């Protein structure tokens, strides 16, 4: 990425530029204000199912085959006998589970290789092409990998042992002395309580996830006529600072082959959390390049917010954001102050 100059007329611009330099990692959220006096947070998280995100789709039904045979059946059903791709197909699978004879017990899961393999996830989706051409179908395939996650309780041997003890407390004393529903409800309560305590203590755990999705367009929904449309890649990481802070980073790259353009989005966020005060400072931005001369753009946003607990159920929150953009004629940047009252924190360090 070539260096760019971000222009701002705001007197505090140097301060925000300083923040951007200090926070060199990537954030999860930025305020895409673009002049909007009420900016909304932008979600840059690694998607749970990259293929669906690539299609901008939120399927209501997602096939999750439990065997290799089920997977084959689902994929065959996605393409009709006429060679046309079914629109609205959505599938998500963890490949290791489908391999006959392959097992990943807890002892393997608690090691890096087993953890990565167990959490590797594939997704496939199809969606109707937007616009006037409703006969064409967009297809996407994606892969997501969690490289490490200190916030996953099942990686902790003591947590797993305690979980086993709690589950056993929900077993019937004698066959028939407790219904399955009661037993399951008991197990759910105990597991929820244990997981909540773990999350509270590990809210800022160090973790790193990556994802990749690629897409094709099928004119007339004919699979063999598909053309590659591009790809998206994500990387998100979090680094814990003691028990009180967290630095988050996010990168996203999009390549649109048909438009011959590329975009790189980035963000950095510094979170500080406690029982009564939450705060964050964040910088995010996007750089689009490869467009016709003069069309490339670079924009960035910076903001911070603080929440104070006023009473047990009343939080006072405030935020300030500022946008920067590159343009031939500098534009006036916007700055705004938001005040709000809520009965719970918008940023909960335990989640």
């Amino acid at each position, binding site marked *: 990425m070539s260096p760019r100059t971000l222009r701002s007329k705001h007197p505090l611009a140097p301060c925000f530029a300083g923040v951007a330099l200090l926070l060199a990692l990537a954030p999860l959220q930025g305020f895409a204000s673009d002049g909007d006096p009420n900016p909304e947070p932008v979600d840059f998280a690694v998607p749970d199912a990259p293929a669906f995100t690539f299609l901008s789709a939120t399927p209501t039904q997602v096939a999750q085959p439990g065997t290799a045979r089920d997977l084959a059946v689902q994929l065959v059903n996605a393409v009709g006998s006429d060679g046309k791709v079914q629109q609205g197909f959505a599938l998500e699978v963890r490949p290791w589970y489908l391999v006959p004879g392959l097992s990943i017990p807890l002892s393997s*899961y608690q090691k890096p290789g087993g953890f990565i393999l167990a959490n590797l996830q594939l997704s496939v989706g199809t969606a109707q092409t937007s616009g006037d051409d409703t006969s064409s179908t967009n297809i996407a395939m994606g892969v997501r990998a969690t490289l490490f996650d200190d916030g996953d309780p099942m990686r902790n041997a003591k947590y*797993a042992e305690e979980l086993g003890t709690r*589950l056993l407390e929900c077993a019937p004393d004698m066959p028939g002395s407790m219904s*399955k529903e009661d037993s399951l409800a008991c197990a759910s309560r105990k597991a929820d309580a244990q997981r909540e305590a773990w999350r509270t203590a590990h809210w800022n755990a160090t973790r790193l996830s990556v994802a990749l999705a690629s897409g094709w367009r099928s004119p007339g929904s004919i699979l063999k006529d598909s053309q590659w449309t591009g790809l998206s890649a994500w990387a998100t990481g979090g680094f814990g600072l003691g028990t009180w802070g967290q630095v988050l980073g996010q990168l996203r790259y999009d390549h649109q082959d048909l438009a011959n353009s590329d975009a790189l989005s980035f963000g950095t966020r510094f979170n500080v959390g406690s029982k009564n005060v939450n705060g964050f400072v964040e910088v995010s931005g996007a750089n689009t390049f490869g467009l016709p001369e003069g069309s490339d753009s670079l924009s960035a946003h910076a903001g911070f917010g603080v929440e104070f607990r006023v009473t047990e159920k009343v939080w006072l929150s405030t935020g300030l954001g500022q946008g920067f953009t590159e343009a031939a004629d500098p534009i006036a940047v916007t700055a705004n102050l938001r005040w709000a009252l809520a009965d719970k924190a918008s940023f909960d360090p335990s989640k």
Partner: protein
Amino acid sequence: MPTRQVTLNPSKPLEVNVISHSPHVAAYRIWTRPAGGSGWTKVAEGSTADNVPDFFSTGPLTSGAKLHYWVGVGGNPATNYRIIVTLGQGGQILPDGTLVMQGTTNASGVDVLEDEVSFT
């Protein structure tokens, strides 16, 4: 409740082994009832994450005896699990003596399974 039937040798003890083949904890409690008997006797309990072997021996059991098991599965929410309980004698798994329990944990990361085996 559906009952699986397993043929065993009434002169040898029954060996039971509980194994988790997925990143989940399996807590278990197992009872047996002799042929013609009316009461259940707990013969084993534990979990696959407690650093205690999940292999135990009971019996001998005669034809008509029953074994009842409860298994609680725990792990991450909405994840596929695979727990296997084997029934054997003399170090060999009996025909139809491999009980495979597969499924998906709920939003709390747990599931419960319960079933019975009759011996012939």
